């Protein structure tokens, strides 16, 4: 990582600047992202919403340093990222657990990769699992857990090394509505307790508004930023808040954008 330029004001924690991504494919170049810039302060919860194929997942892969951008810069506290970022925690849409490891073993994989002290890491892993309601399931294997439980294990694995940032790619997309609500509440609490920054990718407008400090609305392919919406609702947010006029106004604003862009069509 190298510093881009000296700056009198401290740089934002996360700074994605002018990210463009074009994939080569047999049917010609695929333009996935076009000049996407997002920045967030320490501890900020930023959601990215947009239709399928708008490059949300590409954006996350680039932000994680797992994929190079065709042009543009990813910077963390002013330092340029040019390889996989190992300090962060990632949660994918599927839990991506190793079937041959227990819930605890899967969380500990992160600790092994980071060569953390085993005993203290195991204590933290057990505490984390308990904090997301998995006390007593530490020695269960993934196939013995429900989909929601597996995704909780995946969240614990992303948090065991106390990362400054979480990258989440539609983490609750495959879950039922009740489990989703519970995980959204758990995530809000955990992020608040640990002051962790989050870059959260979702299809769900309500989920984005509920969790975020800022919602980034993307256009259909090629993905551009349509609007940045700051969500000014008090925290901690409660489920009842979803019925308030303020909450509905934010959701309406995003839906209106989708209607205007033809992502949604009303008869």
């Amino acid at each position, binding site marked *: 990582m190298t510093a881009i330029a000296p700056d009198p004001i401290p740089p934002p924690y996360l700074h994605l600047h002018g990210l463009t991504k074009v994939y080569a494919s047999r049917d010609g170049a695929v333009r996935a992202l076009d000049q996407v810039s997002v920045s967030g302060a320490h501890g900020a919860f930023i959601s990215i919403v947009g239709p399928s194929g708008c490059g949300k997942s590409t954006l996350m*892969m680039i932000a*994680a*340093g*797992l994929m190079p951008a065709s042009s543009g810069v990813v910077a963390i506290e002013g330092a340029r990222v040019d390889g*996989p*970022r*190992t300090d*962060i925690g*990632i949660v*994918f849409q*599927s839990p*991506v657990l*190793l*079937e*041959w490891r227990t819930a605890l073993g899967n969380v500990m*994989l*992160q600790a*092994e*990769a*980071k060569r953390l002290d085993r005993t203290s890491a195991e204590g933290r892993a057990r505490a984390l699992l308990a904090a997301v309601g998995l006390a007593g399931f530490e020695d269960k*294997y993934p*196939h*013995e857990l429900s989909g929601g439980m597996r995704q909780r294990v995946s969240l614990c694995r992303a948090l065991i090394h106390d990362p400054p940032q979480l990258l989440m790619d539609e983490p609750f997309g495959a879950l039922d509505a009740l489990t989703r609500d519970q995980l959204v509440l758990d995530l809000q609490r955990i992020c608040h307790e640990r002051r962790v920054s989050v870059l959260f990718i979702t299809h769900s407008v309500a989920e984005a508004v509920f969790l975020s400090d800022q919602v980034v609305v993307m256009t259909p392919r090629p993905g551009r930023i349509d609007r940045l919406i700051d969500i000014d609702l008090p925290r901690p947010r409660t489920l009842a808040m979803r019925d308030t006029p303020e909450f509905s106004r934010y959701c309406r604003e995003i839906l209106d954008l989708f209607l205007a862009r033809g992502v949604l069509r009303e008869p």
Partner: protein
Amino acid sequence: MSETEPIPPATAPHLDEVAASVERRRAERAARARVSAVLAPTGVVVGLMILWEVGTRAFGVPVFLLPPPSAIVAAIAKHWWLLAVASGVTTLEIVLGFALSIAVGIPLALMIFLWPPFARAVLPLLVSSQAMPKVAVAPLLLVWFGFGLVPKVLIAFLIAFFPVVINTAVGLAAIEPEKIHLARSMGLGAWDTFFKIRLPDALPAIFAGLKISITLAVVGAVVGEFVGGDAGLGYLLMVANGSMDTQLLFAGIVCLTILGVALYLVVELTERLVIPRHIIASERAAGGTF
């Protein structure tokens, strides 16, 4: 007033009782399934044996055409030492051929997986080597390596190594990309990624290849003995065939079958030791559900 009497709530069983009785019935069903899993195939085999025995005697089938099971058992008892020595020789050939398949097949698969240009260069040759009938090569191997152990081991190897290579290479490549993304984002090195994630992920596929390979190694060893053997079960079969000793022929076939099943079970047992049982069970369940 209605005719039916209302059911008094007191007689309704407690949920715990219902749960206990459901669990009891499940255990009984499982026990019955376990017993029938042993009894049914045993019954079929015993039934066929009786049919065979009675049929050959009733129709007076000559012994040199189809000996009854009792005559085969008698032949095994009479020639047990001959059969034991021959089985020992053949077992050695099979095991060495299988071991060579692993020793060559797994590194070859690793190179195919790790180095795409090598895969492109070697795969066509590998596939065409499988199209070629190995029996046709057997005489050539005899010319090169004589009549001893070596040509049989090589034929067993030639027939058996292909599934090891293909299953290992495919198994290593078949991992979900997210698992590799995850490893990279965790900062796991190439070595750890391979041994902690990719290899364990490929083990079920590798063992599927090994199980095919061990049965093929049996075929290879017998083919080698047919073509130019002076010992082993294949050679014994040729000798028995030449002297019209059909009982001994059947005795040899029985020994070969037992040998093949036993070696297969050894590989399966190893699989159970290497891959914990619940993984195999969960994969079976996943495969069976959909």
